[in-house]
């Protein structure tokens, strides 16, 4: 069923692509159906899941590796699944209006629906490796979506950075997941979560750090946060969907999934608390300095993700509930706000807040959605955002009450500061874009293209759901409680309420709202301060520099290894061959390899042949004329033939002799007439290098023969025994070498003949090729003028 859903999403993506939806509004509405149906199906499952009956599905993929495609719909999976499918339905409709009449709209749908399938697979997965495959799927589709406007350099850079950061994090995470799976003895998430003793495993800390890297890169935590604002060059539906509501929460999801198995250690606690806290503060801080609506929302998202990461450091009921409510609330206000930003962009032609004003009056429906979303983002009562913030502060307060003062105050204080900053940038957005009468800039933008109803519908519905949620906490508990239970592994029955009486938490909350308002009033100073910060500390610039360094390192290594001379290439290859030989020598010693020489006499034909070979080889090297070099090579060949004759290899001797004659004839025919080389000799240093490399090659050959003939290497006899035993009974031949070639290893011989045939064909083609000028591009360029002249004369 679930796999069928994923497949249907993918197929509907392809169908949407084929149907060319950009000029057919009906298809835009139809595209809501697949994610909408999945949402409805999941909603219908909620009561069962709340009762503890999880829906599972499992297919074996590669059982020997523990690789299954398995899904398990528990509270956490259905919470994220509803967000992915529900927001996805809205975004599908919105996309049709946003990419109005763009021919590439179909392609966007394909990428969007592929992403949706990957993301749903990720949150439903019950196997670490299944999860990883879908995780990478989201990275790739995200890359395609960010780079959708690939004519723009900014989109390309943003897409590349996002892919590199999340891709590298994903690979680190894979190692972590494998370590986790190996130490738990299972890759099934539900079994790992239920397993004991993972925290005592030797791989625990390595696995946790690697999983952190994966989660932090995906969820844009400090110091990897820079890719998320860069990803804002994606079309707005992708920003709203991937980079706010769903994909960036994949890291949070992973941490929440692993929470029961891995949490409650100092590494987990402080790692998440510190990085989440830093991300929360810098995200909120930088958001105020932005004039681009999408950039502001992007930094606000970074900050919110920091809060969620920080909350998962804890295991208390408040923290877990705050995380669950935070995820839900964020999807229901930030997603619509991004969609609104897209509508504003569409209607006025800009997202620059200094040029915008009074949009609430100009486009009231969009304005309504925006106001409701912003109030929730600011965490003002009585919104869902307010509830999430209250739970966060409550968690800190409770920790202080339980004597964990340091962590408690960090959360409480950090939460309060972040709360104030949230209020400040939310009010900035609300006032400057929607309420004030006159824009700052002189070239104020006006609404020239009011949005149609279908365009506004998706953000409006989502934001209304978010607004209604705090008043429907009773039914919502059916969704929230199982999710919280899945994170903490203890049954949680929430008693959420908007009003808790005048507690210290509420008072702090009110103080934060007050100071946020003050910050909003003094935002001009704040923006100037942020603009004066040094530019070279920005993450994306540092990343760019690192990338450039990597490129130049690669160029340098290439230049070192390949110096575009034949000698250079050959030297590198030969020197690399030295390495394994030296490594092998380190396991034995050369004296062990040397045969025992006592009592041996230096006689026999081999001495003479070896001397002849050495002299002829030396003569080939030192030959003054080309002819004498060719003849010396011939002498080497004939001596080798003699060698074969003496040492019982008549077939080899015959073949070698024939081949030697042929080679000699060919060499003389081709090279006798060619003019001499006129280039200067190689430099002294280069010659010395060549001699050194040749010496190394010689040593390699020497040692290899010794290895080859040593007792320890006598593996060959085992194989040749079969051939000698069976040559007559099976091959019916007396000459064993022949039988091997034409019978036992006939396919090898077939390959050998093929090589000869290919060489012959190639040689024939080269010899028959037409004159140089017509074929060779390099000569064409050099002789362009000549060729042109010739053509002209031809024409004449």
């Amino acid at each position, binding site marked *: 069923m679930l796999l069928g859903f994923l497949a249907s999403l993918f197929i509907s993506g392809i169908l949407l692509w084929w149907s060319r939806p950009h000029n057919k509004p009906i298809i835009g509405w139809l595209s809501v159906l697949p994610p909408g149906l999945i949402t409805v199906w999941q909603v219908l499952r909620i009561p069962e899941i709340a009762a503890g009956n999880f829906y599972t599905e499992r297919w074996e993929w590669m059982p020997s590796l523990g690789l299954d495609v398995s899904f398990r719909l528990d509270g956490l999976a259905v919470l994220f699944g509803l967000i992915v499918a529900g927001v996805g339905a809205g975004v599908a409709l919105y996309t049709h209006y946003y990419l109005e009449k763009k021919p590439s709209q179909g392609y966007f749908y394909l990428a969007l629906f592929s992403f949706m399938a990957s993301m749903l697979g990720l949150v439903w997965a019950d196997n670490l490796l299944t999860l990883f495959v879908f995780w990478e799927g989201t990275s790739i589709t995200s890359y395609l979506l960010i780079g959708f406007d690939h004519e723009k350099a900014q989109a390309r850079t943003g897409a590349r950075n996002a892919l590199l950061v999340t891709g590298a994090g994903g690979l680190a995470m894979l190692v972590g997941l494998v370590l986790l799976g190996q130490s738990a003895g299972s890759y099934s998430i539900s079994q790992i979560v239920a397993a004991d003793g993972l925290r005592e495993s030797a791989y625990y800390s390595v696995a946790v750090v690697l999983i952190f890297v994966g989660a932090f890169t995906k969820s844009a935590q400090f110091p990897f946060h820079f890719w998320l604002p860069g990803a804002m060059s994606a079309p707005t539906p992708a920003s709203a969907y991937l980079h706010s509501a769903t994909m960036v929460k994949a890291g949070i999801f992973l941490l929440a999934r692993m929470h029961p198995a891995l949490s409650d250690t100092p590494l987990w606690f402080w790692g998440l608390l510190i990085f989440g806290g830093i991300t929360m503060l810098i995200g909120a801080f930088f958001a105020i300095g932005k004039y681009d609506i999408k950039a502001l929302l992007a930094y606000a998202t970074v900050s919110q993700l920091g809060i969620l990461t920080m909350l998962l450091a804890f295991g208390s009921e408040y923290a877990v509930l705050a995380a669950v409510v935070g995820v839900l609330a964020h999807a229901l206000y930030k997603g619509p706000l991004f969609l609104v930003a897209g509508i504003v962009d569409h209607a006025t032609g800009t997202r620059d807040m200094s040029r915008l004003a009074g949009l609430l009056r100009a486009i009231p429906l969009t304005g309504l959605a925006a106001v409701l979303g912003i109030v929730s983002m600011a965490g003002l009562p009585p919104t869902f955002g307010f509830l999430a913030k209250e739970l966060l502060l409550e968690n800190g307060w409770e920790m202080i009450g339980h004597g964990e003062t340091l962590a408690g105050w960090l959360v409480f204080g950090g939460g309060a500061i972040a709360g104030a900053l949230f209020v400040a940038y939310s009010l900035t957005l609300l006032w400057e874009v929607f309420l004030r009468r006159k824009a700052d800039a002189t070239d104020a933008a006006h609404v020239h293209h009011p949005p149609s109803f279908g365009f506004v519908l998706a953000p409006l519905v989502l934001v209304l759901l978010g607004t209604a949620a705090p008043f429907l906490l009773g039914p919502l508990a059916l969704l929230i409680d199982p999710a919280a239970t899945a994170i903490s592994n203890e049954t949680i029955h929430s008693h959420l309420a908007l009003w808790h009486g005048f507690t210290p938490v509420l008072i702090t909350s009110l103080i934060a709202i007050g100071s946020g308002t003050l910050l909003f009033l003094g935002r001009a100073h704040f923006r100037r301060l942020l603009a004066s910060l040094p530019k070279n500390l920005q993450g994306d610039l540092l990343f760019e520099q690192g990338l450039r360094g990597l490129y*130049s390192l690669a160029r340098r290594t290439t*230049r070192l290894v390949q110096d*575009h*001379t*034949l*000698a250079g290439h*050959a*030297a590198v290859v*030969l020197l690399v061959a030295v390495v394994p030989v030296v490594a092998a020598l380190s396991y034995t010693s050369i004296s062990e390899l*040397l*045969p025992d*020489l006592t009592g041996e006499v230096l006689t*026999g*034909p*081999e001495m003479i042949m*070896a001397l002849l*070979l*050495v002299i002829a*080889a030396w003569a*080939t*090297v030192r030959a003054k004329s080309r002819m004498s*070099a060719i003849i010396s*090579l011939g002498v080497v*060949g004939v001596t*080798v033939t003699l*060698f074969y004759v003496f040492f*019982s*290899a008549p077939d*080899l001797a015959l073949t070698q002799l024939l081949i030697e004659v042929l*080679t000699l004839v060919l060499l003389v025919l*081709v090279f006798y007439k*060619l003019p001499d*080389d006129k*280039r200067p000799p190689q430099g002294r240093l280069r010659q010395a290098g*060549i001699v050194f490399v*040749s010496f190394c*090659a*010689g040593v390699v*050959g*020497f*040692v290899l*023969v010794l290895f*080859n*003939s040593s007792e320890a290497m006598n593996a*060959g*006899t085992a194989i*040749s025994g079969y051939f000698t035993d069976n040559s007559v009974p099976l091959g*019916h031949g*007396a*000459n*064993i*070498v022949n039988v091997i*070639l034409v019978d036992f290893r006939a396919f090898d011989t077939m390959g050998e003949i093929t*090589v000869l045939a290919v*060489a*012959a064909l190639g040689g024939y083609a*080269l010899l028959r*090729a037409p004159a140089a000028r017509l074929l060779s591009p*390099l000569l064409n*360029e050099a002789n362009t003028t000549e060729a042109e002249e010739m053509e002209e004369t031809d024409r004449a």
Partner: protein
Amino acid sequence: MTQLILALTVGILFACGAYLVMRRGKIKLILGLGLFSHGVNLLLFGSGEMILGKPAIFNDKANFLGELATRSFADPLPQALILTAIVISFGITAFMIVLLNRRDTLLGSEIMENELAPGYDWLVYTDDDLEEQRQKQAESKGNGSSKISGGEPL
């Protein structure tokens, strides 16, 4: 003893072959490869026991079991491998000869060392070179337009 002599010979063949491959000259590459392939063949040959005058051939097919029992003949497997190697190395040498000949007729001279065929400068990857190339391209863009405007018949 035989093995040691073989090892020394193979070592010298390797060294001479490598030296020739790395030198410049019209046929030194081919000569070097030739020496190398002889060396490699002898290296393979050394993996079996070197036996004088006892080829791996049964004199009497009907009574081969008797000969098999003594196993006094040379190892046939390296020989089979070398036979293939000889033939293939000839194929490669022949192709190389034709290829070098072709290059010679095409270019009129040898390009093996530090000289790149015109139009193939982009094969060189160095930072400075790339920078230079960019400048050249920028210049040639300017020149190109002027060439077109200047070269057109008025």
